[in-house]
């Protein structure tokens, strides 16, 4: 009996080092790391730029998964952070600040601030109200970007070049840029993984399941949700900074509400609450979009129903599919 108990203490319910839970992310990151080598035999620059684009959206999707999958906060304005990060990069560049670290720092700080202010208001609401209010804040950011006539207004803003690292134009090289994005993706993934398993993340996950119970044992539910919301906004801001650098262009379209919807689809498609699912979802979404849009003009007619089918029939999304369809509560 006491041996059972000792066993119970040592092996928590969700073992974070379950080999299968580790296998999927390892394969995903190995594939991403090796992609440029494979691409060397073919259309290198096309593959590198598509790969970087996919990973940039994967970062945004991971950050959304942190609040959507682990915090049950359905933010319909997450693209705003993509846009804010991108504008931070574009505006700094236009003002003559080229440094990537400064740019990324500003993108993260501006996104975090926006998340703090809008989150403070939104987090008090639940369910559909939360969706609508985050959508409204997202649209607000969109309209503000449209009205920035000094920085291109609705036409967007072309950047003179990519940001520089230590004064060097390292990011100009597509292969370097690809690996910088991969490093950011890996960093975001590992950070979120740590956060989710830590005290903070455990409280966040428990609050997702039963907020009243958590408040009754002493958790400040709104504060924990708000902090998660700010972390997610900051990570999405980083992806916006990367997106601006990749395209060397910043546009209000980055924060259109459709973008927010696409991010939600990526997370659900890949499987909510697994982080690696967000990466898979971004890969699948953007690859499907890429292929179908080449094949036919009205690709969305096929794409939409396809998504609905995945969501309806594959529990746990693509991650669920890979893990054998089994999912723990």
């Amino acid at each position, binding site marked *: *009996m006491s041996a*059972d*108990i000792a*066993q*119970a*203490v040592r*092996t*928590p*319910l*969700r073992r*974070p080092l379950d080999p299968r839970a580790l296998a999927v992310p390892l394969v995903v990151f190995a594939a991403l790391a090796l992609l440029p080598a494979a691409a060397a035999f073919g259309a290198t620059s096309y593959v590198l730029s598509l790969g970087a684009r996919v990973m940039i959206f994967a970062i945004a999707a991971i950050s959304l998964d942190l609040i959507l999958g682990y915090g049950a906060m359905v933010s319909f304005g997450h693209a705003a952070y993509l846009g804010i990060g991108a504008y931070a990069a574009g505006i700094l560049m236009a003002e003559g600040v080229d440094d990537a670290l400064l740019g990324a720092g500003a993108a993260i700080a501006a996104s975090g601030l926006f998340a703090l202010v809008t989150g403070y208001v939104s987090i008090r609401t639940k369910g559909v109200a939360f969706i609508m209010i985050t959508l409204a804040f997202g649209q607000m950011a969109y309209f503000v970007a449209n009205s920035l006539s000094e920085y291109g207004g609705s036409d967007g803003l072309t950047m003179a070049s990519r940001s520089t690292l230590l004064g060097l134009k390292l990011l100009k090289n597509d292969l370097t840029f690809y690996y910088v994005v991969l490093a950011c993706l890996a960093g975001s993934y590992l950070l979120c993984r*740590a*956060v989710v*398993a*830590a*005290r*903070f*993340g*455990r*409280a966040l*996950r*428990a609050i997702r*399941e*039963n907020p*009243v*119970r*958590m*408040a*009754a*044992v*002493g*958790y*400040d*539910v709104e504060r*924990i949700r708000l*902090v998660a919301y700010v972390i997610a906004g900051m990570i999405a801001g980083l992806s916006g900074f990367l997106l601006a650098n990749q395209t060397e262009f910043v546009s209000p379209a980055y924060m259109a509400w459709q973008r927010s919807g696409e991010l939600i689809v990526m997370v659900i498609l890949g499987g909510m609450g697994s982080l690696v699912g967000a990466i898979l979802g971004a890969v699948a979404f953007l690859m499907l979009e890429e292929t179908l849009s080449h094949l036919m003009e009205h690709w969305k007619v096929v794409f939409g129903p396809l998504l609905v089918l995945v969501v309806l029939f594959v529990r746990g999304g693509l991650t669920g599919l890979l893990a054998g369809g089994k999912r*723990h*509560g």
Partner: protein
Amino acid sequence: MAEPILGLSGVSKRFGALVVSDDVSLTVAPGELHALIGPNGAGKTTLIHQIAGSLASDAGRIGFCGRDITALPMHERARLGLARSFQITSVVPGFSALENVALAVQARSGSSFRFFGNAAREAALNAQALEALETVALAARADVPAGLLSHGEKRALELAIALAMRPKLLLLDEPMAGTGREESLKLVALLASLKGRYAILLVEHDMHAVFSLADRISVLIYGRIVASGAPDAVRADPTVRAAYLGEEAA
């Protein structure tokens, strides 16, 4: 009498035209087990909500350990040592029994704004959680997801969660409700063992349990306290007999 742990004075609550708590005053002394009884719909659960902070009161004052907590949110009251169980069981279903309790330990020990280090492996949290599970005889089920526990086990788990908070007051809303005879007897024995160590406000329909456990009983009818005193006095009270205990006391 010693300074009470909990003191309500003139606490009221209405839902629209319905007055559910009507000028309620009561106290719970240190170590006292104070039972709150009353027919269905009398407003017992509402009063528990008001004390715990999940419902705001329309009027009155709630004092706890010498502080006015009337305006404090639920989580701050919990941090002061006010622990509760819910009439409708409330656990985190996807978390193991151990983690449910460990979450309560985590809430009172150190910051929850820690972003690194695996919380599920924090030995200090798990050890204290396990101790609370042992108290309610649930240690053998420590790694079972709370959602898969039997109803009686969930009730015991709620008690373990409350105990893990190291509370100054236990608010128990029908902890025996819906449990089988055997489980209910176990819970009564458990409550008897907690008696004296904690101040307890107990809402319960099981009259045998109430009269055997309580130091003091208050009777709530239509949101008003109609009688309050030692069990024998309450049992003999004519208003209570007429209005509530009915044939059970006869």
